[in-house]
């Protein structure tokens, strides 16, 4: 039983990291008032380019993750252009980007022949001497570097959003763009910045799935994790730390699936694979049943700012 718990909880951070990073990226962009549904697509871009970088440059997982971040940011510029400059409906634009990325990554992955090619991945980092502690050491001090980096990123982003001038401007643009505009803050600039920075974290989340966790590229491999991240943002009420706890919860749920099968418990495989999605819906129901509507949602979420049309 203890062995089961240890191996399960040791795997939980690995499955939680993509949720956490993607949700954090979405939070940055949605705090600036841009309803962002692009996560599923941008994660695919990160996952594909990460593996592509590993195959092209022969390893170097760290470089691959940077490539994943940069490429997702580049694609997000298209989204930013659509919603910030051209004021396209943000749901339509987000969905288009997701399906554009699904098609594009499928095409590039096949043409470049990156499908199902195994890559080296990233070594675990044992923080000696803590890693020698029984149970705890395996769970907390023998993870790959990105797990620790994720915690650092959360500290930085939380500080950046809540305590710096730039963070304040991004939040003001999301709460009341007309007032921010009148105060001399460029709405378009800050929204584009939030989208691009947030998308780099989403790309990192995707790159982590393919480069560090699964260690290969399969078409459509993110399997709805981007949508779960969108739900996670609502669950976290657009705040970074609750998103991390929510991501850990989903990480635990997803990590238990292979362990239950490995432990020899007979559960129908495909019904088991539904659990992350059903759990997400259950959490959304809980949010809807317990919290007041719109209490912490950014005030201008989903609304394009059109200075010329303001009342």
């Amino acid at each position, binding site marked *: 039983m203890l062995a089961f718990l240890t191996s399960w909880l040791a795997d939980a951070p690995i499955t939680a990291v993509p949720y956490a990073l993607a949700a954090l990226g979405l939070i940055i962009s949605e705090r600036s008032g841009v309803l962002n*549904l692009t996560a599923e697509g941008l994660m695919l871009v990160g996952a594909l380019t990460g593996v592509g970088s590993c195959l092209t440059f022969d390893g170097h997982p760290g470089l691959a993750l940077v490539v994943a971040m940069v490429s997702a940011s580049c694609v997000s510029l*298209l989204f930013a252009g*659509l919603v910030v*400059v*051209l*004021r*396209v*409906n943000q*749901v*339509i*634009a987000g*969905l*288009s*980007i*997701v*399906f*554009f990325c*699904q*098609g*594009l990554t*499928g*095409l590039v992955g*096949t*043409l470049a022949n990156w499908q199902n090619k195994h890559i080296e991945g990233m070594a675990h980092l044992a923080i000696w001497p803590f890693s020698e502690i029984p149970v705890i050491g395996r769970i907390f001090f023998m993870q790959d570097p990105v797990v620790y980096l994720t915690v650092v990123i959360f500290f930085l982003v939380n500080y950046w959003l809540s305590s710096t001038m730039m963070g304040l401007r991004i939040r003001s643009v999301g709460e009341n763009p007309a007032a921010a505009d009148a105060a001399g803050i460029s709405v378009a600039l800050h929204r584009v910045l939030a989208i691009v920075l947030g998308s780099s974290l989403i790309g990192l989340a995707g790159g982590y799935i393919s480069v560090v966790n699964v260690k290969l590229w399969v*078409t*459509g491999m993110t*399997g*709805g994790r981007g*949508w*779960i991240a*969108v*739900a996670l943002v*609502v669950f976290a009420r657009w705040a970074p730390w609750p998103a991390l706890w929510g991501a850990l919860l989903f990480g635990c749920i997803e990590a238990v699936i292979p362990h239950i099968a490995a432990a020899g418990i007979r559960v*129908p*495989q*495909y*019904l088991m*694979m*539904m659990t992350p*999605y*059903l759990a*997400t*819906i259950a959490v*959304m*129901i809980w*949010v*809807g*049943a317990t919290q007041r*509507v719109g209490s912490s949602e950014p005030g201008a979420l989903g609304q394009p700012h*059109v*200075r*010329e*049309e*303001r009342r």
Partner: protein
Amino acid sequence: MHDSSALSSTGETASPPAAGRSRFVLDVRQSLPAWKQSLFLAVSLGLGLALSVAILWVAGISPIDLAGELAGVFNADSLRGVLVQAAPLMLVGLAASLAFRIGFWNLGLDGQMVFGGIFAGAISIYQIGPPSTRLLLMGIAAAVGGSLWCLLAGFLKLRFRVNEIIATLLLNYVAVYFLFHLLYGAWQDAKTAFPQSTPFQPFERLTDLGYGINSGLLIAIVAILAAAWLIHYSRIGFYMRFISANPSMAKVVGIPIRAVTLWTVAISGACAGLAGFVNVASQEGRLTESYADGYVFSGVLIAFLSRNDPIVVAVVGFLIAVLFITGQTLQVFYQIPFTMVQMIEAIIVMSVASSEFFIRHRIRWIR
């Protein structure tokens, strides 16, 4: 200056120009002649299609080959394929457009198609009803199945304020895994190793009516005509227009918003369920793993391009069917993955959506 009036000057009053600073200024157009609107639309659509052709060129299909493949779609044999393919596309487009009319983002078209297929398949597999009415029963069951799966998301939205975008998208994955559970388990055809159900019997399949018209297409056209009547002439259609025009006013004057929403959601799901039925009963002839793949964004695209008008849905659905058949040809002969179709669809939506900006705004350069 014929199209700029009082409002257009607010661009300047909002931020007084610094002396000598040249910049772009946006004006809101009050109106634009129809031919100019069409011109903007055509130009941006053309740019989008040019981009798609360019991407395919990079992928190894020269524009000449592509034109050849497109022309090949219009011979008698392929055209029959297009008409068969058009039926489910029209139905998902109709499903999306009905739901979008009242602002319900039904993105669960895949899942509703899956459940439509499963319900129809259940009637066939458990041999419910006499052979003469079996097909009718399967169709009704499919509509009920899709409807119930969509109503689940509608209920979650109305009762627990769960965002329907997230709920419907996640329920797609649940539906597909449930289908896998059946196809790799209880419903698997014992004769094959593939995840397929036993083939439907001949009287359980949608047949050709002659002239290359499949009875699936008939179902789609009847559904579209019924929806057009519903929207333009029935009471619920009037309520739907009212709700989409002004939700708060609709509430104030006592329009039963919840009931209209639930009915619309149910009808939308039923259309998607029928699309699943049409796919399994005409093209596949059995339940397969992938009979609902790649339809959700097609539905969104068709609804978006047709501006939620049922009659236009039929036209756009046919055009997307041409795209689907071309995509299948490219997949077979050039090994281009079928997801390419989704990418082109996304490019089309993005270019058409951006054209609206240029229709509604005028950009001026002032010095």
